[in-house]
């Protein structure tokens, strides 16, 4: 009696290969299925054969690399890969600036007011792993950058999860965690084996870190004025305070960079990376724009910032998607 022709395993391998882009599958699927079947031997369907987890993981890794501009990828995927890597750079840079800003704030409050708690200092110091991650990735050292970002990200997420009692954790903490996780994911998957960053010279790596002092320098006179004025008279200061914090300045930066990128018709990768960054910032700012607690300067500023980001993100998305290279047509 002859055994039935095994088809179940082949079907399952083909299902796993659907993780790959259609254009890649059109070229490679039959060849890969043949290799899979030769490797596993012709196992009859009765035994219920399944692809092994290691094989599935290797296809997942291949799918990520191909979709993010791996070797020989089509131009559309190269553009997506560049967008993800740019988003990673923006995110790591933002986290590095925020951690340096916190460090400077603690230093200043130690000098002028009172030293912060040991927990706060420890978390801020560990958070500075983001600075190491930024420097490493800008210098082209991907592995150390990923390791440092994991340390910084872990510290940031721990601080977010334990900073407030569980019942008070809300949208802001959730979206801040989303920004951290998105940055980590973009860094981990974007800079794969086939996409090593070119090392940038030190004079382009270090100066941007000085921007961490900017929000502090802008906020200091405001705080001094506020403490010198009686309560109601200080209210006008609140109108600007929300633009001068690190996240407020990041919103301004995305709006300005977005406008420049649109005007100069930059590559789709730049437009899409800025659009994603803008979306994350808008999500973070959203609760401030909701009149839950009536504080006019705060929620009006929140509404204005969210509205401006919404317009900019929409424009960037439309322009970015339109500018993407066309997908390779796959014949049926």
């Amino acid at each position: 009696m002859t055994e039935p022709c095994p088809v179940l395993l082949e079907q399952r391998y083909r299902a796993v290969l659907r993780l790959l882009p259609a254009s890649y599958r059109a070229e490679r699927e039959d060849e890969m299925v043949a290799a899979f079947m030769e490797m596993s031997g012709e196992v009859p369907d009765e035994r219920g054969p399944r692809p092994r987890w290691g094989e599935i993981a290797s296809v997942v890794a291949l799918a990520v690399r191909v979709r993010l501009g791996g070797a020989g990828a089509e131009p559309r995927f190269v553009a997506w890969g560049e967008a993800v890597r740019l988003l990673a750079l923006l995110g790591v840079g933002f986290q590095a600036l925020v951690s340096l800003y916190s460090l400077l704030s603690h230093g200043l409050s130690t000098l002028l007011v009172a030293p912060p708690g040991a927990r706060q200092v420890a978390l801020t110091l560990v958070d500075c792993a983001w600075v190491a991650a930024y420097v490493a990735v800008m210098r082209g050292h991907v592995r150390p950058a990923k390791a440092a970002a994991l340390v910084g990200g872990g510290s940031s997420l721990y601080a977010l999860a334990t900073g407030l009692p569980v019942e008070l954790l809300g949208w802001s903490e959730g979206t801040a965690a989303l920004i951290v996780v998105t940055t980590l994911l973009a860094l981990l998957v974007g800079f794969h084996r086939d996409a090593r960053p070119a090392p940038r010279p030190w004079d382009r790596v270090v100066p941007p870190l000085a921007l961490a002092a900017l929000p502090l320098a802008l906020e200091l006179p405001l705080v001094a004025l506020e403490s010198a004025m009686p309560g109601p008279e200080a209210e006008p200061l609140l109108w600007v305070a929300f633009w001068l914090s690190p996240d407020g300045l990041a919103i301004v930066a995305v709006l300005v960079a977005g406008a420049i990128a649109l005007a100069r018709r930059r590559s789709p990768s730049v437009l899409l990376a800025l659009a994603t960054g803008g979306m994350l910032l808008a999500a973070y700012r959203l609760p401030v724009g909701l009149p839950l607690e009536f504080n006019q300067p705060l929620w009006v500023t929140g509404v204005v910032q969210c509205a401006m980001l919404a317009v900019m993100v929409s424009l960037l998305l439309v322009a970015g998607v339109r500018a993407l290279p066309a997908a390779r047509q796959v014949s049926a």
Partner: protein
Amino acid sequence: MNITEPMFLALTALVDEPRHGYGIVQEVDRLSGGRVQLKIGSLYGVLDRLAADGLVELDREEVQQGRLRRYYRLTDEGAEALAGEATRLAANAEAATARLRARRAGPGSTAPESTVPGSTVPEPRRSPTGRGPITRPATALVALAGSALTALAARAAVNGGVA
């Protein structure tokens, strides 16, 4: 170009004849003594990289028992890159072996200069007098003499000077 171990083994697998995907997996397994077992997803990642760099190319297609087999062959650039990488690895291995040999010989001996990784094919090492290449027994003798002298000097220092 950074040639990883799977890339190196895949290139080596194609030196003698063109091979198809599973054939490369088997040959890499054999070459590495079972230490490197390429998964199919990883294999095609490696082949994509090598093809993009022009180190391998499609040789032919065959259909066997209704299944597609694509054979890949090594290009001239691939052979050149493989030779360069093999030389670099050989130089590393030689440097490591020489240092280990000196270590085994004793603390007073000095390790021969290591070859800089990535350099071209190393010339046969000459003796300081230029008479001929240093042989392993000669290195061992020099190392032995070195450690004997060191021990003598140490004993002399303890006893208050060399007689």
